[in-house]
């Protein structure tokens, strides 16, 4: 039997994927055209009955499902608690769930559906920056509300999005402050090759230049990359004081196994990670990552009555072995912030919520958070954590109090020129 030229196989696949992507783009453009018409129409949110609908838009399939399902669970937990306590403005909240399928275009499409045909009062969800960027025009043109619960690269602010995860000055900058305080003089940057790590590393390099730190190397790997022998070899010979890790997903598994096996230790060269939360520790294998550092705003181990109640409620609802993590907590908080804003405004109206959001606060598991009315981000306490053999992360350092959000890093002189 004669074989086709083998390179043909990949070109067929490529052609197929190009066709699929193009048709999706076209579909997305098509829906955008119709949005502009919809925007002139009045909001169709129905508040006459005894219930009010909200959307929960998370990837329940595809590569991001691993993380986003937990966010959906956290949103549901908050809604159930609020309903049990009497609802919002005496109305029970009803969740309309949609699957973003790990595809930005699907997120945009489903957001449009939730706003225009389900008539939800607000939407909670999104994870990747690309999904948020895809949804942004949909929410702006419909003048609807999105509550986005994940730490991100900053440099954004929309009156239609409330950002309840950390921006860079509440996660990356404090992590750098911590390293500087510990006497770190040089860093090695390792990240996945996409927008968040690249932006984060630009900020880190600007910080390092202003604070006399040396960047010994900077390496990116394609998402999903599984061979780190070369990079770890480079890291080992560069001999930096610490490694700043913005790798995402399964790459972390291969990276930390290699790191440990060539004899690099958290004592000699600690790794600070910004994308590894409690759920990921198990997959990496806790023995490979014990004593390494993470930078977040929330850990399951925070010992306050509010957090203990949250952790207990989460485990009761979803299972004793399910850890709580930063993005889950931020999603849980976002629902309460929406409720508190609605109650302050006395209305579900988008304009009323936007006007009343500034100064609304909530006693969150991470500590008190307050919405900044200027940029729609929230104040957050930064925490550096250490991963321990039980698979949980324990706070080793925290900021003096909640840090004001500064998505464009305007208050940092060294960051001038970054947002341009």
């Amino acid at each position: 039997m004669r074989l086709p030229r083998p390179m043909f196989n990949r070109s067929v696949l490529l052609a197929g994927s190009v066709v699929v992507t193009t048709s999706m783009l076209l579909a997305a453009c098509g829906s955008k055209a119709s949005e502009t018409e919809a925007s002139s129409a009045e909001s169709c949110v129905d508040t006459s009955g005894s219930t009010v609908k909200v959307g929960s838009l998370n990837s329940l399939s595809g590569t991001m499902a691993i993380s986003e399902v937990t966010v959906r669970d956290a949103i549901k937990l908050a809604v159930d608690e609020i309903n049990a306590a009497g609802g919002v403005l005496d109305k029970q909240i009803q969740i309309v769930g949609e699957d973003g399928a790990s595809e930005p275009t699907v997120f945009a499409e489903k957001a449009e559906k939730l706003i225009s045909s389900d008539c939800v009062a607000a939407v909670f969800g999104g994870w990747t920056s690309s999904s948020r960027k895809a949804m942004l025009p949909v929410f702006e043109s419909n003048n609807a509300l999105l509550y986005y619960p994940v730490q991100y690269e900053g440099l954004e602010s929309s009156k239609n999005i409330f950002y309840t995860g950390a921006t860079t000055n509440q996660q990356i900058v404090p992590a750098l402050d911590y390293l500087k305080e510990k006497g770190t003089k040089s860093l090695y940057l390792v990240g996945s090759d996409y927008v968040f790590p690249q932006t984060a590393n630009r900020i880190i390099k600007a910080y390092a230049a202003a604070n006399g730190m040396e960047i010994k190397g900077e390496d990116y790997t394609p998402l999903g990359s599984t061979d780190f022998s070369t990079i770890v070899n480079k890291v080992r010979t560069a001999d930096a004081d610490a490694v700043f890790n913005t790798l995402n997903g399964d790459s972390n598994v291969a990276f930390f196994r290699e790191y440990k096996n060539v004899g690099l230790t958290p004592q000699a060269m600690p790794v600070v990670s910004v994308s590894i939360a409690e759920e990921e520790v198990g997959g990496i294998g806790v023995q490979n990552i014990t004593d390494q550092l993470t930078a977040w705003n929330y850990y399951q181990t925070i010992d306050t009555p509010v957090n203990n109640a949250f952790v207990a409620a989460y485990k009761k609802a979803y299972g004793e072995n399910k850890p709580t993590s930063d993005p889950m907590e931020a999603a849980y908080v976002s629902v309460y912030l929406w409720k508190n804003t609605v109650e302050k405004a006395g209305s579900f109206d988008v304009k009323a919520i936007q006007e009343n959001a500034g100064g609304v606060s909530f006693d969150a598991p991470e500590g008190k958070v307050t919405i900044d009315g200027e940029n729609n981000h929230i104040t957050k306490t930064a925490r550096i954590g250490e991963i321990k053999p039980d698979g949980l992360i324990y706070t080793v350092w925290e900021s003096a109090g909640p840090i004001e959000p500064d998505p464009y890093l305007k208050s940092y002189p060294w960051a001038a020129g970054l947002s341009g």
Partner: protein
Amino acid sequence: MDVLIGQLATGLSLGSILLLAALGLSLTFGQMGVINMAHGEFIMAGCYTAYVVQQVVSNTGASLLISLVVGFLVGGAMGVLLEVTLIQRMYDRPLDTLLVTFGVGLILQQIARDIFGAPAVNVVAPEWLSGGVEILGAVVPKTRIFILVLAAVAVVALATALKASPMGRRIRAVVQNRDLAETSGISSRRTDITTFFIGSGLAGVAGVALTLIGSTSPTTGQSYLIDAFLVVVVGGLGQIKGTVIAALGIGFLNSFIEYNTTASLAKVILFVIIVFFLQVRPQGLFTVRTRSLV
């Protein structure tokens, strides 16, 4: 100097990983001409086999060795099932085979996700494989040495089996001239199934070994699939030695380019080199010369 040694070791190790992932494919694709896009999922099945065996056998060393055997059988059984139910019906339609097996791959990924969950699971490496060995200033993880040895053993075993055993002779006969082999009394059906069993079984073995260095998640197999095809195509269809040389060549090339540039750029440069190579030598490094007219 220790950088050079380190990168030589890295290249050798990467080559052996590619070789292990591609060896099964060199049988099913190289010898039989079946484009099996589910090959990556057979590797993934091997990874999960290692995980399941480790839940039963708590001694990590013993469970690794048991997994290698069980992984071979699991991968092989899945391969035979796929061959008997689907692939045998489309030996004359390679493009259909490509699409169908791609679909089967997606189904297998989803099954893995439903059974084991989407997050990666952790397969603990045995104590005697933790840490590294220092060679002239460079540190090579013991897990990578284990994979190197395993790949070498698998190649030698496969080459010997193909060369010396009656089964190997039948496989080679069918590959070289199917009609003539049938006329000489060889059941080409049975030979096809055997070949597919061994090829898929080797994917399972690769999966078990790869848990030592990488993650075990439903999409694990995908990351090795393209590389495996690349190795077989560059090596030339129908030759084990081509696969071996191509795997090592790509491994060394990749590690040296990556050291001097970046991981993303290294992939690009590597692909460009391979595209040029295939322009000059579309048949790959080695080919089987036969007197058949196909």
